[in-house]
């Protein structure tokens, strides 16, 4: 909001060369949000409590829909721990690795009577699953992704699904088996439904995308060729709204026991939790996560380049190798968390969700010291990993 205030204040919105632009981490963050992956909103960011919107979906889908918002992910986990939430269908997200409070998530997942995981690999979450439904890679998918500039690009199958099924087919068949008659012959029909029910996508179809290459939403009668730059002449909401943005300092404070601030980021060769890139030759550039520490802080602790160090927060500890670096100022240490073995969620606190890369949340007070062993959690991780994959490797 503050950034939008700044841009309005200086007249930098609605023109080429200006604007306020998020650089989104995952390929389809924009799209998955546009598509209504929210407990309180239908596709196109419209509240489930809005009667007119709900009616349009009810008419199209042929049934009454709940007008109450559902559970958000933290609510789901809380209810699971309490024992009132029992079954989950998780499509391609490794919540057991990316969620900040691992003990809470573990407890929640263990308490489920039916956890269904749909993914390419047996990820961390799958360790708690009862059903594993193999997913497809982008080379097999037929559909669209929406990038950070609202651009819908076609994803076309280079090969057939190696699993024998498209992911939308799996979802559709579960719905059918549960007694709801969901039916599509192919994914273009799903996009037709999206366009039919979502005003900002009204002009989108596979045919049009195949013709035009790609389209930036809103794409409808008012903007048949899409919208490269938004808010020209006037804002979508009408008049621009300056909103008050009070600075609230993080609760996380350095103390004599934890005198350093940890912040995290990404490296070129690896991607997020590394499920894909770890399984490629990209590991030659980044075989493990490294802790960057300022030479001043390192000298104080007797740490040299390449030393194994224990990174401790008030929440937990993990071991990483050190790299002396002047990229940060003294007092700040930095690492990437691409490898599950690094145990990001062991060190970071409940508000420091590194996976979502929220800098405000990416602050953790830590201490670093030389060590000669990996942490207890890391040992547990290795043991559990071996136990989970052993039967699988034996059977294959």
């Amino acid at each position, binding site marked *: 909001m503050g*950034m939008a205030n700044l841009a*309005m*204040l*200086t007249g*930098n919105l609605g023109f*080429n060369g*200006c604007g306020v*632009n998020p650089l989104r*981490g995952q*390929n389809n*963050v*924009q799209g*998955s949000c*546009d*598509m209504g992956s929210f*407990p309180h909103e239908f596709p196109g*960011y419209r509240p489930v409590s809005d009667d007119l919107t709900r009616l349009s*979906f009810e008419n199209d889908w042929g049934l009454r829909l709940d007008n109450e918002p559902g559970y958000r992910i933290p609510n789901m986990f809380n209810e699971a721990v309490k024992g009132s939430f029992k079954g989950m*269908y998780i*499509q*391609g*997200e490794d919540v057991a690795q990316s969620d900040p409070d691992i003990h809470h998530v573990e407890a929640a997942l263990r308490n489920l009577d039916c956890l269904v995981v749909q993914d390419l690999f047996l990820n961390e979450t799958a360790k708690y699953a*009862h059903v594993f439904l*193999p997913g497809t*890679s982008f*080379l097999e998918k037929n*559909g669209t992704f*929406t*990038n*950070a*500039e*609202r*651009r819908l690009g076609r994803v076309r199958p280079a090969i057939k699904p*190696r699993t*024998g099924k498209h992911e939308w087919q*799996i979802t*559709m068949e*579960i719905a059918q088996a*549960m007694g709801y008659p969901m039916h599509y012959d192919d994914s273009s029909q799903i*996009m037709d439904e999206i366009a039919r029910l979502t005003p900002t996508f009204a002009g989108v179809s596979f045919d049009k995308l195949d013709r035009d290459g790609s389209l930036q939403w809103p794409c409808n009668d008012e903007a048949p060729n899409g919208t490269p730059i*938004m*808010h020209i002449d006037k804002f979508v909401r009408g008049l*621009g*709204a*300056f*909103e008050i943005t009070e*600075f609230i*300092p993080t609760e996380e404070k350095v103390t004599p026991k934890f005198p350093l*601030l940890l912040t995290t*980021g*990404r*490296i070129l060769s690896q991607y997020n939790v590394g499920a*894909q890139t770890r*399984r490629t*030759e*990209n590991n030659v550039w980044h075989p493990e996560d490294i802790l960057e520490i300022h030479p001043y802080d390192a000298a104080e602790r007797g740490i040299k380049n390449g030393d194994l160090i224990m990174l401790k927060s008030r929440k937990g500890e993990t071991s990483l190798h050190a790299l002396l670096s002047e*990229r940060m100022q003294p007092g700040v240490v930095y690492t990437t968390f691409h490898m599950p073995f690094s145990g990001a969620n062991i060190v970071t606190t409940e508000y420091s969700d590194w996976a*979502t890369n929220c*800098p405000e949340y990416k602050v953790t007070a830590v201490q670093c010291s030389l060590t000669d062993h990996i942490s207890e959690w890391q040992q547990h991780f290795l043991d559990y990993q071996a136990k989970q994959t052993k039967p*699988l490797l034996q059977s294959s």
Partner: protein
Amino acid sequence: MSLEKDLDYGTPESLCQELISLEIDGHQVVVPEGTSIMRAAKQLGTSIPKLCATDSLEAFGSCRLCLVEIEGRRGTPASCTTPVEAGMIVHTQTQKLAKLRKGVMELYISDHPLDCLTCSANGDCELQDMAGTVGLRDVRYGYQGDNHLNATRDNSNPYFSFDPSKCIVCSRCVRACDEVQGTFALTISKRGFESHVSAGIEDSFLDSECVSCGACVQACPTATLMEKTVIEHGVPEHSIETTCAYCGVGCTFNAEMKGDQVVRMVPAKSGKANEGHACVKGRFAWGYASHKERILKPMLRSSIDDPWREVSWEEAIQFTAKKFRELQQEYGRKAIGGISSSRATNEEVFVVQKLVRAAFENNNIDTCARVCHSPTGFGLNKTLGTSAGTQDFISVESADVILLIGANPTDAHPVFASRMKKRLREGAQIIVVDPRRIDLVESPHIKAAAHLAILPGTNVALINAFAHIIVEEDLVDWDYVNHRCDKDLFENWLAFIKREQNSPSYVAKVLGVEAETLRKAARLYARAERAAIYYGLGVTAHS
């Protein structure tokens, strides 16, 4: 190189409004001023032989193959570096030119392996094509003279090899690294006969500054820089246009195939997000799709302590549906829910939320993306009315000042970073707000106007301080604010932003950055003709 033979005009498009008319081989053509003769000819459908020119790079004029004759002018200028002029009469095919071109090709081939049949670029080699085009039949000089045929191959990069014995020193790779990627890792070392491409001083590709984006491999007209997958599988036979599945740039790629085997991923020139460029992940790191750990059959188990059991799709789906219904009967309608993925397609995500709303009959659907998206969504929706970025990527090419907050594009969004760096080399300025000295603070041909190394978690304070300074120093665009913004909300906000807590002297202590540094940066942003903000995922709701 690429299978998809996009029309290559040889030199970049001229954006000049002024039009020029000339004659090439007896045909009239009208092109924008600043267009090369080579490009103008291509527009007529005439291909002038070339090796060092390609339209993604500025003309270089080194290969001496694209020579033409211009009436009234002496000599045979290179058509790639000669701009069109009104009334010019150009000849691209004359006996004199044919002889010259053949002579040039003879020299190239006298120092090139004659292993075309077994070469990995066989059928996909511009040198081979040009030898055919000029009708090369023999090499008068023989092959016994000094040559580079025994130069050592560099296989250090996991994805491509560098075989200098096949290099013609056209410098397309060097220029692609500079102009397209903006890393400046490659250079031509030494001069004359000894000149050669190198990745730093005696470094191997792997140990060099190379970021493995592959632009050099794509630019290479021979087999010198070659994807290892092409060496293994041979030249692809068909191609499918698709979108990369890594970051939010969403590059368009041509998946070049041989049957069911992906041979290489080549970024598509037609892709508006990437315009023919790619990074190490998108271009090369797709091998996970066939990794041995990938699970291809559905599996079940009754307890998480049991081993997995492979089952049919039918069994897995029926089991899931039955179990979910039983849980709802026992614990209520809301006892089940779903999480959708920001890696999945729009269509896949849409059906998951539909499954939850229509078949689970509740709204227990969420996505991990919500956590990082909602600050953006919430903030931009509240102030402007839409939960999304305001610009297309190409917009950055018109920005004069870029304010980059909590994002490290050269690592996380490399293809957009290349676009941004290109604009910075053209003279735009950048203010980097990041606790860490990221590459955009200082790297070859890039130097940030300011690096505000704020303490982690203080973005909001910084942005408020910027606004405070702009108000205090009256750098406000009043015309814009008065005409386009809500007056009451603005007055309310103005009272807030003027508070002492937002003043640079106060905020400086919170950020760990000097007040004067803040002032200078805020002025730079405010005074720019066109200023753009780019920020990392989830600079929070308040910023």
